[in-house]
């Protein structure tokens, strides 16, 4: 997805550093202080934004390990048995996710880029050497996929204010959830 968050955050930091801060009057200490804090916040976001999911997965694995050990050691009173039962339920919900092989966001983006490139190469090759039927079919497939992709992108960027009537667009949930339910 272009632009990625890193690019946007980086541009915000640059604007604050190179344009906004130098333009602030030197005696506007509160504004200068807060602009610098904004730069700090944005720096943190730039470092973390694509790692949040990964961070949660690590945390999940650690708590699964901790809770599993506690459950294994647990014995005694009724109240402990009740807590163990609840813990086993939570571990049962976590188990399929912990077992999944989930790519990092950067890996996922790279994979999608490589698939896009392959589609493009096929289109170019089809124009050079493809039969008219293959060319036509490829074209129509690309057109159909683009329709879904563009609708998703319009929903994603609706807040940019370029749409003539943004209220007619589906929400981000609506364009993302059908795909999640498919899997």
């Amino acid at each position: 997805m272009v632009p990625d968050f890193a690019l946007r955050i980086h541009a915000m930091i640059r604007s604050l550093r190179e344009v906004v801060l130098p333009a602030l009057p030197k005696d506007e200490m509160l504004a200068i202080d807060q602009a610098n804090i904004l730069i700090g916040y944005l720096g943190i976001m730039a470092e973390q934004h694509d790692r949040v999911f990964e961070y949660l997965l690590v945390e999940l694995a650690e708590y699964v390990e901790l809770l599993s050990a506690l459950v294994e050691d647990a014995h005694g009173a009724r109240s402990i048995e009740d807590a163990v039962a609840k813990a086993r339920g939570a571990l049962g919900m976590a188990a399929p996710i912990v077992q999944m092989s989930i790519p990092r966001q950067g890996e996922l983006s790279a994979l999608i880029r490589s698939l896009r490139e392959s589609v493009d190469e096929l289109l170019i090759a089809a124009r050079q050497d493809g039969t008219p039927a293959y060319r036509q079919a490829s074209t129509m497939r690309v057109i159909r996929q683009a329709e879904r992709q563009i609708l998703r992108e319009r929903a994603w960027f609706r807040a940019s204010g370029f749409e003539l009537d943004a209220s007619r667009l589906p929400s981000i949930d609506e364009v993302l959830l059908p795909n999640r339910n498919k899997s």
Partner: protein
Amino acid sequence: MILDDKQHPSPAWIESLRRRYPTERTVDETLTAKMRSRAGPPHRPQSIDGVIERLNRFLERRLSGAFSITSFRGLAGGSSKEQYAFDLVRTDSAGDARRDTYVLRMAPAESIVATHALREFQAMNAVRGVIPVPAVHWCDPEGAELGQPALIASFCEGVTRPPREGAYTPRQGFGPKYRALLAPQFVRYLAELAKFDWRSSDVSAFDPPTVGSNEGVIKAINWWERVWEEDCIERYPLMTLAAQWLRDNAPPIDHVSFVHRDFRGGNFLFRPADGKITAILDWELVQLGDRHEDLAYLLSPLFSEIDENGIELTGGFYPRDEFIRLYEALSGLPVNPVRLAYYDVFCLWRGTINVLATAPRIMMGEKTHQDIRVGWMIGATPLTLSSLHGALKRRI
């Protein structure tokens, strides 16, 4: 953040793109210079003192007699060029003291559109007197003296939009009062540009296309496909389909006009007092080509507005059919629906290249003073893609 090989292009790759996409001489020069400097340092705000010093030396070589530069200040607005205003105080040939205000437009290291200052300079000189444009005085096309390619023009009074408060939004229309005042002038100037006879003007920075041939269109496709290859961060198969369709359907040209390529609200100045258009701005993309391109560009939904009665207005001015009818009457040139449809695809494809490929590319390299604004423009990509998709789907 993705950092790819295109940030450090090899000379062999640059040459291969030049061979693969032959285009106009000055376009080739501009794109080649852009790629050769891409691996260089990012854009950093210029020291005002440094700009004034270079400007002083530049003017010393061109002005006789004493002069001074005062009130030098940066200008906001525009996404591509760094702009400054300054006052030039001097004594004219009659011995009278005069003070004139000028605008200095300088190209940053890379811009949302990489263009050649001499093309802008020559086109503005040519059409001045036919339509209102700022007088252009000097040009430093390679930036040999001013440090960056630059152009100096007279400052024109006026505003681009009626003043408003609130957050930035591209959907700020003119409103009924100003629309009524501006619309007739706007369509007239667009028509005047189409019918203007440029043949006695200095157009040495252009390679005029031949009437009856589509070679100029192919060169224009090459220009923008080269930019796509140079700048895109990730492929977008619909863009490839569009380029293929444009090559397969490139029409011959019936009349060669100056084509502004960004003729729309926001790119002209008007006096708030009486709504008179004082200057058509932003000539950087100008070329000699097919008038249908300017018309198709303006017909894009990106520039339309909904009026108080819920009617969609082309460019924020007239309903589409009325706009075309007026344009034909005023220019004396026919609007061919097949060509208009072709240039609709062309303009949407070209515009999408600017926002989908070049905008993130220059943000990545920190190549402009306007990364933040350029980044905001990327938000227009889904809308231009949607229109491109619709236009292609109707024709494939």
